[in-house]
């Protein structure tokens, strides 16, 4: 069986940063493997360890920079990777879920996976939508926010728990082929071993343009664009306590005692 895992970056913004020209300057940003995708990779790799003949392929829509997190996924056990990028995408201020889904679907149509695992949400825009959009695009079944997965590959059914709000889980049976969006906590993602990191260097990482995956740049209907970006005005009136830790802790202790806190 083949499992496709979508892999994207998380973006960490420095404590002190500036917004200019509708973007945050690169020097304030640190990229890493998106947390949710880390759990999705682990889930796929574990399935591969449990049943025979599983190939885990990752797909990423992103510039060359993203190869760093792609190699992380390979080091953790994915077998090979596909990265799609194109100059036509470089100009987009927002890669909306529909566009991402369409591009991943173009790869998925070639790969014909039985199961696609995505993260619940990405680390920059956090749309929380690409996985379900992809399922609709592929005409696959799906389940969003999965925190437990029991796969019956023979029967072609994934029994999942969907984590709803307020500590309630929905139990569902989902027919394969399907897209599942994976929630953190579903497993315990491994750290890449030194051997894994070494092996990752020689695993295939195919880079494709829009043309390669059969998408015409003129057909990209990028329907969302950013018209402003700014630091939100603080709604609250947080009073910041000033001074060294001894002073701030002292002040805070007093404040807490006023509110009746005491052991």
């Amino acid at each position: 069986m083949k499992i496709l895992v979508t892999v994207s970056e998380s973006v960490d913004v420095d404590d002190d940063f500036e917004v200019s020209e509708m973007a945050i300057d690169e020097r304030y940003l640190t990229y890493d493997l998106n947390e949710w995708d880390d759990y999705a990779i682990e889930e796929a790799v574990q399935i591969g360890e449990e049943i025979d003949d599983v190939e885990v392929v990752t797909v990423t829509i992103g510039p060359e920079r993203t190869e760093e997190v792609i190699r992380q996924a390979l080091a953790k056990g994915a077998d090979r990777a596909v990265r799609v990028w194109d100059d036509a995408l470089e100009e987009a201020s927002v890669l909306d879920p529909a566009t991402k889904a369409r591009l991943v679907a173009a790869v998925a149509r070639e790969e014909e996976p039985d199961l696609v695992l995505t993260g619940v949400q990405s680390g920059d825009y956090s749309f929380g939508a690409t996985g379900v959009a992809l399922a609709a695009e592929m005409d696959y079944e799906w389940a969003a926010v999965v925190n437990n997965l029991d796969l019956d590959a023979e029967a072609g059914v994934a029994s999942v728990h969907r984590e709803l709000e307020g500590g309630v889980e929905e139990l569902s049976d989902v027919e394969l082929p399907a897209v599942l969006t994976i929630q953190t906590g579903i497993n315990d993602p491994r750290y890449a071993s030194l051997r894994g990191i070494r092996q990752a260097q020689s695993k295939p990482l195919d880079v494709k343009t829009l043309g390669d995956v059969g998408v015409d740049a003129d057909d990209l209907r990028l329907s969302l664009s950013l018209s402003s970006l700014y630091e939100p005005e603080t709604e609250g009136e947080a009073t910041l306590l000033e001074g060294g830790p001894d002073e701030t802790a002292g002040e805070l202790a007093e404040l807490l005692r006023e509110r009746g806190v005491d052991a």
Partner: protein
Amino acid sequence: MTVLAVAEHRRGELREESLELLTVGRQLADALDSELHAAVVSGDVDQYAEDLNREGVDAIHTVDHGEEFNHDVYTQTIEQLVGAADATMVLTPNSVNGLDWAPALAQRLDWPLVTDAVDMDVSDGLTVTRELYGGKVEGAVEVDSDHAVLTVRGGEWPAAGGTGSATVEPFEPDIDEAAIGSTVTGFQEVGAGDVDITESDVLVAVGRGIEEEENLDIIEELADAMGATVAASRPIVDNGWLPKDRQVGQSGKNVSPDVYLAIGISGAVQHVAGMNGSETIIAVNDDPSAPIFDVADYGIVDDLFEVVPELTEQFSG
């Protein structure tokens, strides 16, 4: 033209966000010179329709099909209802279930989707405000279309009030049962543990800023000294460092203690959803731009490893 607000319910209860949708939906409808219609699919739709009949709602479509949410049924139904009601905008809560069907609808209609809207403006085309990068920045997203599917963040608009005079119209979609490939087999509540954090007057909540499991000791010591209970953000629970019943937030517990002391917690929306009803919120975080400071009453911008032991000493002394 209509703005269509699709309500959400679970296990017999209409969810509060459904009423908030009516407020933002009415604003949009006014600006677009449209009607506001609500729709409710599955369950006791007549009861839900009564609850949804608030001021400003022009019509309510009830779809009596099954009991609980099924994304295939929702997607098929709303796709047909969009046509029947001449909708140009579809709104639904930005909830786990909302995100389980709205993206599929958008894809089928080939309409743009914007999730987790915190503000909207239609004076010059549709612009949606949303947060980026874990809430550190906000952006206005322009939608290049007259149509859109929008999921709306809870708590950003007030619930619609009053009593409306909407017509209630049953809608019978043509459901392709063969295309339903997922079946809900049940529900499960996360088990209760020995501590009920919702009962505690004072919570010391710890987040990923604590870095290592063994560092939790300093949090336990502080909580002991203060006579408080330890709670946590999600990553601490995901890592298995504290049990699930200590998790505060959207998928954990909803707490409203007298004092909520958030230590090394960034203040992601899903965390804040579970604690913003607290009487006094205090945050300790070394990042001054962390969104937790937006909901905090008091803050200390400093290294928790410096502040926490000092604070423990203040209470032990």
